[in-house]
Each structure stands twice: as C-alpha cells, then as structure tokens.
C-alpha cells in the first residue's frame, strides 16, 4: 500500500489532515504528518520530512503532499537524505493538500499503484465544491 506523508508549515495542520484522512482509509494505511519545526514553531523541516517518508515507506512507494512554498523546498531537501532506492519511489503531488490527501488515501487504500495515487491526488485540483 502506498504510504502518504503530509508536509505543512503547521504541525496542527499536518496532524489534522492525517486525522481526517484516516477516517477514509483502511486501518493499516500509513499516513504520516511532517509539520512545523523541531521546536514546534511554524515552518518546514527537511529532517522531519525525511523521517516521515521513511516511516511511511514500503516497496509500493510514498506520495508526499505539501502546503505552500518552502514545504516543497524542504521536501526536495529531504529527498537528498534518503537512499536512492527509496527516493526513486517517492513522488510529490502538485495538489491541494487536504483534498489531495483524501483522494490519495482512498486510492492507496484500495491497493492502487504509486502513479495512480499521484494521479488521483492531482485530480483533486479539478474537484468542484459547489455544483
């Protein structure tokens, strides 16, 4: 099952998205938060992100969802800390973080491939709320 990592500037946002997404996922779905700095302040921490990726890791790979700006920079840096074998199976979604996370966990929970989970997360960009 593809693992999911949520990178946000706020630890509360990352944890909250994980809590919500777990409601939609199978019990053994891995969804890990990587939010805030080591001292709890607002920011993103590449080391925290790489730890979360390793904790979410399986051979099926990991999808990372990021909030804004430096969340992506920290995620790129986190990739540098990872073994090449892991890095090759990590993707970063260009998706809204919450809607993308919900789509991703459901797709991952049904056993879809990393590329399918990525595509579903990114598909959340097109999701209308008022129809």
């Amino acid at each position, binding site marked *: 099952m593809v693992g999911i990592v949520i990178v946000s500037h706020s630890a509360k946002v990352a944890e909250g998205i994980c809590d919500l997404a777990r*409601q*939609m*996922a*199978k019990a053994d779905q891995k969804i890990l938060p990587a939010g805030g700095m080591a001292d709890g302040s607002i920011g993103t921490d590449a080391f925290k992100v790489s730890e979360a990726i390793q904790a979410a890791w399986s051979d099926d790979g990991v999808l990372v969802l990021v909030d804004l700006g430096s969340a992506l920079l920290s995620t790129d840096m986190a990739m540098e800390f990872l073994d090449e074998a892991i890095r090759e199976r990590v993707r970063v979604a260009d998706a809204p973080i919450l809607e993308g996370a*919900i*789509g991703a*966990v*459901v*797709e991952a*929970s*049904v*056993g879809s491939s990393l590329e399918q989970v990525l595509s*579903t997360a990114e*598909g*959340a960009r*097109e*999701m*209308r709320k008022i*129809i």
Partner: protein
Amino acid sequence: MYPLTEIQLVLMNPTGLHARPASQFVQTAARFKSKVQIIAGSKRADGKSILNVMTMGLKKGADFTVSADGEDEAECLAALQALVEGNFGEG
C-alpha cells in the same frame, strides 16, 4: 429478460455520498472486478474513483442508479446495495 446489472438506490444516511461514505463506496466497489458506474440524472461517475464519486454531490434523499458490468457484477451490486441500505454504518 435482461440480466440484473443495475440497481436503484436512495441515500438515507445524513451526509449523503460524501467523504467517508464515498470512500466506503469506492473501497467496496474496488474489491470487485466489474466496472461500476453511478448515474444520477444526467451525471455519471466512475464508482471506483473517489474524486468522481464526491464530485457527484449526492445528498441525503438523492436517488441514483448503480450499474456494474463484469464477471462479478451481481456480488458487486449486492455489496454496494447492502452498504447504501445500511446507511454506511451511520446511526
């Protein structure tokens, strides 16, 4: 007689086919090989796609058709019917 490959259902759970119920629907549909579609009015969604299903915006009271096409279509429809009629386990 046509084989039974579609069923009519009404959503009676409070939140309709959103978020958690939508994910349960998709995860149940995904257990089967059959192609699953949800049809409501002029809208049609892939029953195995969470975004498709949530985009349908089906609320409490909505009636809709679920069709299944494939070798396990009868079992698939029975499982989806049980899920919807059981109100997705909601109170």
